[in-house]
């Protein structure tokens, strides 16, 4: 049953993203229900205007009950909450995930996080984190403290 929900929900989301894509967000690779790739354009008038980033979503069979694994790949934006290995410090991806959220809403959250940035700089503990982090950001114990950016 859970698996039926998983495939139905993801195929619905994919159709929705392709027919009615949000501004600056495009699905580039979605051959399986295991992992998708989307491009995210920096919004005009922000620090990231003109830049294009790639987000990778990895889904567990328990999606949407469990959050997807979301990381930047390739060109990684410099941002106080984005580590240089692509891991994103964003509560909705971890403890604040809810089955109501979707690929679209996660992309919009990340886009808004980039847009509200006022100073392009890496996280203060970037070097230490990148050295010690596991492959999946979901294995990191995150603490969320900054609501401004």
């Amino acid at each position, binding site marked *: *049953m859970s698996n039926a*929900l998983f495939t*139905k929900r993801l195929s619905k989301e994919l159709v929705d993203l392709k027919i009615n894509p949000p501004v600056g967000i495009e699905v580039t690779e979605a051959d399986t229900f295991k992992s998708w790739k989307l491009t995210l354009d920096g919004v005009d008038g922000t620090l990231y205007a003109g830049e294009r980033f790639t987000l990778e979503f990895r889904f567990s069979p328990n999606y949407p*009950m*469990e959050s997807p694994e979301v990381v930047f790949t390739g060109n990684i934006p410099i941002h106080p909450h984005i580590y240089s290995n692509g891991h994103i410090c964003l509560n909705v991806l971890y403890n*604040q995930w*809810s*089955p*109501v959220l979707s690929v679209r809403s996660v992309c919009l959250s990340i886009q808004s996080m980039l847009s509200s940035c006022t100073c392009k700089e890496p996280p203060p503990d970037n070097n230490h984190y990148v050295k010690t982090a596991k492959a999946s950001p979901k294995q990191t114990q995150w603490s969320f403290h900054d609501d401004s950016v």
Partner: protein
Amino acid sequence: MDLNSVVYVESVNSNLICCVCQTPFVDPVVIESCGHTFCKNCITQALLTRSTCPVDRSHISSVNEFRPAAKIIVNMVNELLTYCPNKNAGCTYQGQRQLLIYHLKEECMFAKLACRNEECGEMILKKDLSKHMESCKARMVKCENCEAKVQLSTLEGHKFTCPVKNIECPFCHTTRIQSEHTLHLEECPEKPVTCLHVEFGCSWEGRQCDLSDHIVSCSYEPLKGFFSMYKQRNEALEQENQQLRTNIQELNNTVDLLENQVSAMSDWLSNFTDPKGLSSNSEGQHLNSSAHDILLSGNDHIKNEIENLNFSLVDIDAIMTENMRMQEEIQSVKNICHGLRMQMHYLLMEKRGGEPSVGTTGSVVRTGLNGPIGIGRTVPPNANNSKSGHDTSLESNMRPPRSLGPESPRQEKL
């Protein structure tokens, strides 16, 4: 049927869409505390992972916090127009979602049903089913003779065994049902037969009804007894012959086996008797003879060595026997010593005059255990005595056991 996967005719108001599965509510329920609505199945699964409302993350303590959604919501989702799930197969039905189950069960001609003949097993569209039943490979058909219902695939086989089928006799051209046909063939007067004595040489052939007339005049009839006797004898002889043949075959096999063994054996032996002979054929005779000489001398040498070894063996044998004898003697001397030791001990005890005779046995055991020889045996004194009497003659030949030396002073201390 799974209502989550139906396709809706019109786009559905977003208020009727479950946020978890993102399709119109199926069996909608409301969370009492926050008022959000979900499919019953979706919220049940979501709460397995996290016990908060998926929309506002408010805490939900138990499943009992649901109630069925308001009737108006239930009606609105039930009345949504849907396509038939068999749309791709060709069904054009559109109707309210709540009627879909009835449509699929009763009306839809594009639903797949299993053929009613169990052996067939095919899945057939409902609209094609009656046509399929007429041509199904596993359908039942009526046998034209016996009226029994038989599966199509077994009809051919049935025709041969059908008890009511009429069969014409090929000889007298009368017809009867199959069950009687075999019996009739036995006695059909028109059936061509040969003389009963055909095996002995009578060449008469004719109709079955004329056979009895022929037998009367057949020249082989009077010799019947003679022929049958010889036939029996012949058969017995043949049987015996057959048996003898098998015996011979077995013996031949055994002989072959033995021959093989013998040749293998001789091959092996030739390694020893003529090791160079095989290789030296090409080198010439003189080489062969010199090799032979060398071999002979080697052979002599080995013979001498074997003789020497035999002598040594005899010597060793003698030494062994001697050794055995010595061991026995040592044993007997040990026993004598032990006996003496105990006698001495007894005397010593008596001299002290203190201890009763029962105590002696105890002390004997102790001395035995404490002595450096470590012989734990407690030989009864009288048995020892008899042995010592017998062995006294040996005592002069033997040195006392080495271990006795250091023990003696201990005895005195006691």
